[in-house]
């Protein structure tokens, strides 16, 4: 059974004349352990798809199934609990709480879940260590570089040991070197720690790390490709593919 499955997933913003169809009857699935990238031009509905899959927003029509369970049928509190325990988010703007330290930020989902602070902090410290942030535990976000902040955000996404990581343009706000590092990190999270990753990006170099790629345009999935070969070759192929969209 796929970990994520969508059925006729549709999102329409606004009504009447100004209505925007952001997602148009999307049917797709993400297998357990898979690293899936969704690519497409700006405004094609990638973020909307991610938000619906992560239970951040509700669809206009259709369903999202997580492990076969219908997310759209869940109450707000249950969705929140689900986001705490089963799903980790990584965003383009790192979205850390400015008044909390790296450690506290990373521990947040556990703390919100009622885990004792000492234990939550121990988990968070472990993940930060693994992601190379062991020497920055007590820095506040404004004392960290963009790439470091994104690592804290990734630690936060992983701290509750969720099966599913959703990442929305996680490198969009970084220079190319930091971007590469983050992309490699996501690859590691998939191969080394076996998490399922759904990544949204328009950058071919980043998407090239994925196992499989979906191409979107105007709220629809128009193509799909499975990747093999070296990173650079794949990136080139993807770049060409994107041009045609």
């Amino acid at each position, binding site marked *: 059974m796929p970990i994520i499955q969508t059925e006729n997933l549709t999102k329409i913003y606004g009504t009447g004349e100004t209505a925007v169809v952001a997602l148009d009857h999307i049917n797709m699935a993400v297998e357990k352990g898979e690293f899936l990238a969704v690519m497409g031009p700006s405004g094609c509905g990638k973020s909307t798809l991610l*938000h619906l899959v992560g239970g*951040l927003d509700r669809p206009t029509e259709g369903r999202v199934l997580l492990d076969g369970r219908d997310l759209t049928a869940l109450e707000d509190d249950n969705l929140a609990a689900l986001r*705490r325990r089963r799903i980790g*988010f990584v965003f383009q703007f790192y*979205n850390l709480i400015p008044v909390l330290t790296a450690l506290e930020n990373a521990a947040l989902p556990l*703390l*919100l879940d009622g885990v004792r*602070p000492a234990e939550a902090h121990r988990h968070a410290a472990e993940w930060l260590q693994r992601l190379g942030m062991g020497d920055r535990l007590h820095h506040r*976000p404004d004392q960290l570089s963009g790439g470091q902040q994104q690592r804290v955000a990734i630690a936060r996404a992983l701290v509750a040991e969720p099966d599913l990581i959703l990442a929305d343009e996680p490198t969009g706000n970084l220079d190319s070197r930091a971007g590469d590092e983050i992309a490699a990190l996501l690859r590691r999270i998939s191969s080394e720690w076996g998490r399922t990753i759904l990544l949204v990006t328009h950058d071919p170099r980043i998407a090239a790390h994925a196992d499989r790629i979906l191409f979107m345009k105007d709220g629809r999935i128009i193509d799909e490709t499975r990747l093999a070969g070296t990173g650079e070759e794949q990136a080139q192929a993807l770049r060409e593919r994107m041009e045609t969209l």
Partner: protein
Amino acid sequence: MRVQLMMALRYLRGRKLRTALTTMAVVFGVAVLFGMNALLPTMLQAFRQTVMAATGKVDLMFTSVTDGPFPADRVEIIQGMEGIAEVTGSLRRNILLPPDMASQAGLNAVTLVGVDPEVAARMRHYPLKEGRFLAADDGDAVVVSKGLAEKLGLAPGSTLTLPSAKGTTDFEVVGILNVPSIPGVEEVYVPLPAAQRLLEMPGQINVIEATVKPGVDRDEVEKAALAALGDLFKAEPPEVGEELIASLEMGEIAFALFGVMALAIGAFIILNTFRTVVVERRHDLGMLRAVGASRRAVVGLILAESLLQGVLGTAAGLAAGYGLAWVLLLSVKSVMQQYLRMEAIAPIITLPNLMTAVVLGLGATLAGGLWPALAAGRVTPVEALRPVVPGAYERAARRRGTVGAVLVVLAALALLTGNFNLAALGTLLFLVGLVLVAPVLVSPLSRLFGRLLALIFAREGRLAEGNLARQPNRAAITASALMVGLAMILALAGIVTSTFDGFMSYIDHSLRADFLLMPASLVLGGGNVGAGPELVEEIRAVPGVAGATTLRLATAAVDGLTVQVVGVDPETYPQLSGLVFRYGDSEEAFAALGRERAMIVNGVFAAQRRVKVGDVLTLQTPEGKREYRVVGVGSDYLNAKLVTAYISQANLERDFHQTADLLVMVEAADDADMAAVQARLEEIVRKYPSFVLTEWRSFREEQERVFGQSVSLFNVIGVMFALPSLLAMVNTLTINVMERTREIGVLRAVGSTRRQVRRMVIAESLLLGALGTAFGILAGLWLGYVLVAGMNVSGFVIPYYFPYTGVLVAVAVGLLIGVGAAVLPARRAARLDVVAALRYE
């Protein structure tokens, strides 16, 4: 809950200045509430103890329901009753001292107590310092306290001259009591017959006191005695100095109200701050929701923050209040020690007071935080991840604006009903409505003011206007902080102006005679000694006097309500003076007074008992029940605050046995030599020490001066109210600039000079100031009008006068604040490091 507290602490620490300013609002309210309530009971207690020590104890005390005199033989009814040990009748009256003696003694009046010497000495202990207590065969003998004797230089054998109905009476001092003197309750004891002669009340007493036999249930005896005396009598708790105690208790209530109002403003400021906090932190909140915080957790976070401030503010407020109580206590300590012989007095902290202050302090912060917290709970995760969609926002604002407009209309309707309770509720609706409507009004109003501003700040004005229009909600929040402060100032100004002008017009209309002979205390009641008919006859005979009329006084009860009954001469009174009529016609009403048992009631009376012209009321008089027809509703200046009925002097004599004149109004002839008339009147008055001769014009000036003083007191209170909300305005404006740091960085990056940035911030602040002033004036006028209307409903009728000066002051203050609040933020904005600003989140 632990995470929320931790985050709340961090957020508060991250914004120290704002936290301090917001907390101040709570500190202020709690301090007033707690401090005053810790102080006043101390004084009350000290006072009670001293009074008790001085007067000793009797078990039972009865007076007439009218507080008037009654025949001395009523004592006999009690005499034979079971359980009664001793019983005695006495006559107690405050009498005013003549001015020279008053200044020497340091008090205006003493309580003359006429007692049956033998029985009194058995019932109470009178500790003697010198001489002896009164004896049965004493004539005009008097026993005074040690303090009074020292002040007046009295010793056994010397003479004390007291004012009487016929002029003065000389008393021989026979004894000095070893009791402390207390201002206002200084008692001098004379034999009952001497008191009755002095007060022209032969055979009358006004208090029955009794002790019960040991082992007898006091309350049972009291009940039986009351039943035997009939429904003309009431039982009194045996306490003296009740008036002083009552006014201290009033003070307690007033300060409690003041504290509660200050806390209400505090709650509003908290509300304002947290609304800003939620707007400012939308992004963080949405993010928290995205990583799995439940709605409740987010609500809890904001509530935790306000609660922390509440705890902080309440704790600081308690400390500040305790300090305040000490400072005030020390400043009155010497007076207290001198009069109350209290060595060690300290503020009393009672558990209820502590609890009240804590509950109200925390309650206010929680109440203020609740709405923003709920709003925070509604922030959706996606909102953190996308820019706010203006369309949706505008729709919500318009919806709220509509609700607000409806509330304002409802409030107006409530005001029109003339029902005070509805109007008061309406005020609340009005304020809430205004807060809701404000964001919708921000755009048009800022366009209007922006055009004016563009005359001074050509380019920056336009930019500032744009900034406000883009964030109407935030602009409205900032402006409403100012609104509350100005509204308070203006509402107070409205009341003060109306009261001031109202009182002056009362004086002009109802106390308009060239000369007034009045009791020094300026109230008719209080047991002033009146004059017999000789006084006014003598005055009428003075050459150059065109006419004179007098006021007399008695007390009655209507269904348990004590009413002061003023006797007027229906012929001469309206000619020389008159009442300000609200209902009824002056001429007809006074004619009716002369014709039958008719009365004119004043506004307070009419309001408390819902009396209308044409009603027939039963007055409880010393002669029993008498029916009086109401022929008008109107008041004079002196009695406007007390429940009063005006009847003819003929009826007052018939039903109340009162013939003493307490106030004489004298009108000089047009061609009279005023100086000569005044000189002659002064000569006459010298024989009546309880009267003071006042020329009308100087009386009016004196009243104006006294009022001026209380007006300045009100101004201080106004400033105290306004201060916290003005701080809040500075606070929100600073936040405004901080939030736009990045934007300002962009402006600087594309080439704006520091000067331009500074001018932009100042222009924006001025715009906000103008908005807040406009709202504040609107709300303040409304509030003032409602409060004055409320006073009218309570019967204290004053017309509403528009506070022109208040409006001018509000405009000036509003604009000043507008500029003043911008000083710090503008400097901050201009000094921004461009690169750092661009990176600011």
